[in-house]
């Protein structure tokens, strides 16, 4: 697939590349699923990047963290959907997973910190801090180290959708 650049009313159109759907119960039943899914998807979508091996390594690194976040959900029912689409140098991950209302609120707040100017400082503080890494660190790291843009979108039912735009192709070398 060549780079497709559609522009519609300013909002770029992302071409779908791959999607994985799974019952959340099945997904969280084995921790290794995060690793499997991130490695597999990274490999599939990186083949036509300029450096497939490096791209796949970086993408897997980012996606695995997001999947680990989903895997820690406190909600026991529903589905996980992970979709990757592409616009030019940017790959978009849309991760939808069930969560309880407090978690939803937590993600909404976390994402608002990520987009703020203090993201970098918050990230450094959390690296040097004593506490085990929170789910917020993951999001901060994506923004600070991977130049990702993040947002939270509405999803049906007790679910949340994290949308992460990763410009990895431009990040190399």
């Amino acid at each position, binding site marked *: 697939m060549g780079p497709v650049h559609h522009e519609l009313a300013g909002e770029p159109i992302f071409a779908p590349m791959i999607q994985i759907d799974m019952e959340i119960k099945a997904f969280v039943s*084995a*921790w*290794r699923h*995060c*690793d499997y899914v991130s490695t597999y998807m990274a490999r599939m979508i990186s*083949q036509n990047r*300029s*450096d*497939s*091996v*490096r791209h796949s*390594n*970086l993408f*897997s*690194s980012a996606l*695995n*963290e997001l999947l*680990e976040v989903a895997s820690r959900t406190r909600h026991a029912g529903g589905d996980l959907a992970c979709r990757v689409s592409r616009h030019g140098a940017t790959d978009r991950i849309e991760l939808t997973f069930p969560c309880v209302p407090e978690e939803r609120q937590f993600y909404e707040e976390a994402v608002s910190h990520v987009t703020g100017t203090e993201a970098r400082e918050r*990230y*450094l503080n959390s*690296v*040097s801090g*004593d506490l*085990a*890494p929170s789910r917020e*660190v*993951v999001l901060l*790291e994506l923004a600070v*180290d991977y130049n990702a843009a993040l947002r939270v979108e509405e999803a049906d039912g007790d679910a949340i959708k994290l949308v992460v735009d990763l410009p990895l192709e431009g*990040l*190399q*070398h």
Partner: protein
Amino acid sequence: MSPYDLLPRFKAQYDANNQEFSIAGVVRPQAIDELGPSIALLRDAIGRVRGVLYLNVRRLTQMNNAAFHAFSRILIDTCRARPDLKFVVITSSVVGWTSRKFGRLSGIEPNITVEEYDSEFYPGQGFLEEGGFVPILRSQTKMTWRHERAILPRHGMRQGIVMADICCGIGDFAVLVQKEFQPSRIVALDHSISSLNYARQVMREFDIRGIEYTYGDASEMLLDEAQFDLVTCRHSLQIFNRPELILKELYRICKPGGRVYITNEKNSHCLGEPRAESIRWTYNEVAKLFGHFEMDVELGPKSRRYLMEAGFEDIRVETFMVTNLDGDPQDFADVIAAWADVYAGEMATRRGDGPEFVAQFRQGFEDHIFAALHPKGYAGWPIWVASGRRPQ
């Protein structure tokens, strides 16, 4: 649990001689206690060392935040408790995220520093990675291809295979293979960014598909184990001072039952008529000159031993001679002229050779060109091809 779950995916080691703790592989635990033994090893190492502890993460391909936090916690706490101790984290430029992630630590504790390390065991790097070699490589591959296209099928090349070309240079070989044999996938790796850029540009211009160029270090590749039916490494083992390390990696990424194919030279056996004596003298000197820079351009006939020692079976060795009669003799002459430029130029200068030596050295190349272009002349450049099968 699937059998896959039982495979250890990472390895931690401590080397007391070098005060080096290394961790390699994929580290993605759910809970920190899965790291217990590695963490204990690190703590133990910290207890023993004085001065500097090296933390080698060059082959760490993945580490999740949970694990990163556990390890960095130990480093940070140690820095606070023991100001006498320094940590040097050694990363590789090949793994995209490690330098950045570990680099954060040095911002927090000045006693932690991060060094991006790329193979030092390749002393000739300067001569061969810079742009100057590109035209030589192009003509060389054009000349060797006439022979290799017939030879390759005897060493495992077939349609539809998954192959890797390690130390691919500017990618000509990969392109020729793609056209002639149509493997289903080619991964081509090199450590020269300028060569890779060149290769990618060629791929775009000619709309070539199915080749993935990747930046990497042949001695420590990000590529997974056992994934290629055929791994080629051409004219490159001979430029490393420890070729066995590269072969080990080629073996690792090759599927059991697949083959590793290498080509190398024995420069002192380049020949020509007329003016044989002068030509022979110069190429003997070429071998010595490369030897001075710890490169063994006499490696060709040693291929069999290297492959055996690396654990391969069903080893096949053959030789072919590129000559002035293969195609246009001018191509042959051009390659010799390019060798003369680099060998009697930059390399001789770097070794500190005097003008008298350089003049005689250059004369041999000129005589080789003379032989190549002479209507009754003959000029040759012998190549050793060898391949071995990775046991099942």
